[in-house]
């Protein structure tokens, strides 16, 4: 019989019966395996790329020295390891030049991920290196050269040790994040720390142990071993903590791609179910004939089961090949622009593809085909016999379970699954109610309309239930596409607003109050767009509502927790949003303070609480009158604590700002430092460029995936239209036989399909907004905003697409003789 199954498939294929079914199945497998391979490869690459921001895969950070056994354990597990110590220290050259610098001492293996950038002269051409200075050497921040009046090869002193200046330090992979409050960078070797004698117990230092491995499992095992041993003040960092902005971008991109994959599977599932149903309806007569010729129901089940199996295997192979080509094409096309090397995908994506095909076939295609064996042989004598009771409810339940299961399995996120299902549920319930009501209501309007309209409305009503179901299916497909379009748009918008072209890529710190005017003038004269100059005062929190803060064992960590940069402002800073309380009126001299939300939570403080501070050696008390959120990803100066200007006026402050500099404007920094030698300039341009390039790659991936899913959506529409074409063709042929004009027949069909498309588009838009609200607000942690622009798109595209597809699929009815059309149905 398997020969017969092959032959039957081949014949059905030739007859065009299998087109949509096979296409949907191939597309499902291709979408799933392609997206999975794509995200796996991109993830491997992006994670590696983002690990460069940590200079490692995992980092343990502490204010005190950590056990060397940890590093030994790491090495014995074949992990790469490195250690870092960062501390502030004076650096001397000759007798009179000295500057407070932020010294980073690194072992030879540093950095484990990413590269060091340096140059042979200050602000000169950038070179890369995989290791830092050798023992006895230092690399100095570009601006230290003029400040110390030294050149390459000169000697400088840190504490008691003497070093040779070997290069200008430009950037380190892990420099983002912890630069505030430090001076210009000096890089030295870890082995030279003791010789300097500057690191004493209680010094303000930060130790880091760095770990990396290509073997993720080994790394996770090590982390599992290490984590229980961490004490207070020792923190384990991975990329998400290392670079929160990028971590969020990656997580959202991942959510999007998984969402897209899940929606692709849902769409393909619906297309498969529709196509299988049509296939089974058309095969009812064939089964009746075969049964009259002696085929038992077991024979029929076997025959169709085998056909489906063969179909599944063929579609899986084709789909996997297509999925592979899709992601390969993407990396081929955009590979050169990626600053990262895509990682291997492995076989898992194809296993997922095959499993998806199996689930799709079993839950969407098999139920209607299995019931073919119940077809009555009596149909050979009486073709008008009603078809076997189709138990559509069970079909839908099985399909829904499969869709939910696949989505959950695929995304690993029940909230995402629930968000999409909620949208689908709204579509179904609202859809059936609305469609039935509207289709019924059309009768009154239709009666007095011209004959095309009457024909169309009569058609809509005659097949009321079937049409309502079809409207729901169209609406589901359109809704899923709209959801994806909306999420993609807000995702890319969010990324672009997060890092616009002129994102500040340099910071200036330590600007003295008397220099403020001159700095502003210079920036203006050089035409450099800069953020306003913010005053900055370093202070500590001592008490909350009169209670002193509890002491921690770890002095350094405790200090880190309580020390913060204060600023003052009359206005709420631009990126900030008030979430509680009120902003103070201008010129307020009241003892008030505004806190950043997370900072307030850390201290358990809310509006109305009174906080005791120490600024320099002076005490200060203020009442919390507002809580703010701020955008840490903006690369603008951000402050946890903001006071009214008059309250802080008497305390010593320095100023800071951020500004954007084109690469060719870099020499400005030399001029600037010569004029303001005590101002600290932090170069973030490389980091900003890296983040932006990653985001642009992920955006391209998102666009590509969207295009693939649109194809899946189109298939559902085609399958949905085809499902109803037979009945419509039958009626239209009879009309045609009775002499109806081409215009009447096609016009009637056009109106009928357009009306369904209009309802479907309307429904889809409503449900999509709901679904997107759930997804963005609950799953992706983004702000939801209604999108009015999507309404005309949803409704317009629904109407035009479905009307077009409907008429296109029925076009035969006016181009072929009625009898031959009727014979083929």
């Amino acid at each position: 019989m398997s020969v017969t199954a092959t032959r039957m498939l081949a014949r059905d294929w030739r007859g065009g019966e299998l087109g949509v079914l096979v296409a949907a199945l191939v597309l499902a497998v291709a979408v799933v395996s392609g997206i999975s391979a794509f995200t796996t490869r991109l993830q491997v690459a992006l994670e590696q790329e983002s690990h460069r921001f940590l200079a490692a895969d995992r980092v343990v950070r502490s204010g005190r020295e950590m056990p060397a056994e940890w590093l030994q354990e790491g090495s014995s597990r074949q992990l790469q390891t490195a250690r870092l110590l960062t501390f502030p220290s004076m650096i001397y050259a000759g007798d009179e030049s000295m500057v407070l610098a932020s010294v980073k001492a690194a072992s030879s293996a540093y950095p484990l991920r990413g590269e060091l950038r340096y140059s042979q002269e200050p602000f000169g051409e950038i070179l890369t290196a995989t290791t830092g200075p050798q023992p006895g050497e230092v690399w100095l921040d570009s601006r230290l050269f003029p400040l110390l009046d030294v050149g390459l090869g000169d000697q400088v002193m840190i504490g008691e040790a003497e070093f040779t200046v070997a290069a200008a330090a430009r950037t380190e992979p892990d420099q983002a994040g912890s630069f505030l409050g430090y001076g210009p960078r000096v890089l030295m070797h870890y082995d030279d720390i003791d010789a300097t004698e500057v690191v004493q117990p209680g010094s303000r230092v930060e130790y880091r142990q760095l770990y990396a491995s290509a073997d993720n499992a080994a790394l996770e095992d090590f982390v599992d071993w290490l984590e229980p041993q961490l004490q207070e003040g020792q923190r384990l960092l991975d990329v998400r903590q290392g670079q929160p902005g990028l971590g969020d971008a990656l997580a959202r991109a991942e959510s999007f791609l998984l969402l897209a994959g899940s929606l692709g599977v849902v769409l393909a599932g619906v297309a498969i179910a529709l196509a299988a149903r049509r296939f089974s309806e058309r095969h009812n007569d064939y089964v009746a004939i075969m049964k009259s010729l002696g085929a038992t129901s077991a024979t029929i089940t076997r025959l169709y089961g085998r056909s489906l199996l063969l179909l599944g295997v063929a579609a899986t192979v084709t789909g996997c090949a297509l999925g592979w080509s899709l992601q390969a094409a993407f990396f081929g096309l955009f590979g050169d622009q990626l600053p990262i090397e895509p990682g291997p995908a492995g076989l898992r994506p194809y296993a997922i593809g095959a499993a998806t095909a199996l689930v799709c076939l079993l839950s969407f295609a098999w139920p209607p085909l299995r019931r073919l064996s119940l077809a009555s042989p009596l149909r050979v004598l009486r073709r008008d016999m009603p078809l076997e009771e189709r138990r559509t409810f069970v079909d839908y339940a099985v399909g829904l379970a499969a869709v939910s299961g696949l989505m959950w399995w695929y995304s690993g996120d029940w909230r995402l699954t629930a968000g999409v299902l909620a949208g689908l549920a709204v579509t179904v319930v609202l859809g059936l109610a609305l469609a039935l009501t509207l289709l019924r209501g059309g009768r009154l309007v239709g009666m007095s309309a011209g004959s095309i309209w009457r024909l169309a409305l009569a058609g809509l009503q005659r097949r009321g239930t079937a049409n309502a179901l079809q409207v729901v299916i169209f609406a589901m497909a359109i809704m899923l596409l709209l959801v994806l379009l909306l999420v993609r748009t807000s995702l890319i918008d969010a990324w672009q607003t997060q890092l616009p072209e002129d994102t500040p890529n340099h910071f200036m710190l330590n600007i003295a109050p008397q220099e403020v005017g001159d700095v502003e003038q210079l920036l203006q004269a050089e035409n450099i767009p800069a953020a306003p100059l913010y005053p900055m005062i370093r202070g500590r929190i001592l008490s909350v509502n009169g209670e002193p803060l509890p002491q921690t064992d770890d002095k350094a960590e405790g200090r880190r927790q309580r020390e913060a940069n204060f600023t003052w402002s009359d206005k709420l800073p631009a990126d900030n949003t008030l979430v509680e309380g009120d902003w103070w009126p201008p010129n307020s001299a009241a003892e008030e303070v505004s806190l950043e939300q997370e900072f307030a939570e850390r201290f358990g403080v809310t509006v109305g609480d009174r906080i005791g501070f120490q600024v320099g050696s002076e005490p200060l008390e203020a009442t919390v009158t507002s809580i703010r959120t701020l955008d840490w990803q903006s690369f603008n100066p951000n402050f946890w604590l903001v006071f009214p200007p008059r309250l802080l006026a008497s305390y010593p402050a320095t100023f800071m700002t951020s500004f954007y500099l084109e690469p060719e404007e870099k020499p400005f920094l030399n001029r600037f430092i010569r004029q303001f030698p005590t101002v600290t300039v932090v170069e973030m341009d490389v980091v900003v460029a890296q983040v932006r390039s990653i985001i642009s790659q992920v955006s391209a991936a998102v666009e590509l995936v969207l295009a693939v899913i649109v194809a899946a959506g189109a298939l559902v529409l085609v399958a949905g239209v085809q499902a109803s074409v037979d009945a419509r063709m039958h009626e239209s042929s009879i009309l045609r036989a009775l002499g109806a004009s081409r215009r009447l027949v096609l016009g009637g069909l056009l109106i009928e399909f357009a009306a369904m498309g209009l309802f479907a588009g309307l429904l889809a838009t409503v449900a999509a907004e709901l679904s997107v609200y759930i997804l963005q607000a609950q799953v992706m942690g983004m702000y939801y905003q209604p999108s009015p622009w999507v309404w005309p798109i949803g409704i317009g595209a629904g109407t035009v697409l479905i009307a077009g597809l409907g008429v296109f699929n029925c076009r035969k009815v006016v181009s072929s003789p009625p009898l031959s059309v009727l014979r083929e149905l």
Partner: protein
Amino acid sequence: MAGGELAILKGITLEIKSGDSVAIIGASGSGKSTLLGLLAGLDEASGGRVIINDTDISALDEDQRALFRGRNVGFVFQSFQLLPALTALENVMLPLELQGQADARKQAEHFLERVGLAERTSHYPRQMSGGEQQRVAIARAFANSPAILFADEPTGNLDTTTGGIIVDLLFDLNREQGTTLVLVTHDHALAARCEHRFRLDAGALVEGN
């Protein structure tokens, strides 16, 4: 039958001997097709029994009846009922394949040749005229050497000339194969060629014209 049920056939007793040819005549809606469906085991009666070659097919379930049909029964239908996706040859092979016969192709070719379609084996039904399609159907009906052949208005969709050729073919093969023939028609000329004729009138069966 009680209640609101509709009695289509009532009190019918019909015995057909092996090798007989029997025509059942009746107006549209007289229950001819229903009777044929029951006799051929395509349908289940609400009461009564149908016995073919000592097998009570009314006591069988649908799958057992299917096996029984495959071994013992052939059909020729008014609307031909060829599978549109199969070629003429494949259509004729189908019942043989369902029986698991090894030489299905050879036998099918033989019967197609017998109905004069040796040249058209690879053609699909839509490429053939009505008469040709019905000849394929006849070849298929005889292919598994059935004990009894049911024909439902075999000329109903054909013009008179073509119908005549088909009827000749049907009776010739019937004779050659020694098959029992049960023919349902409202065509008296066709009925006249059968050895026995029954008329179905308002659900009751009467022998003779």
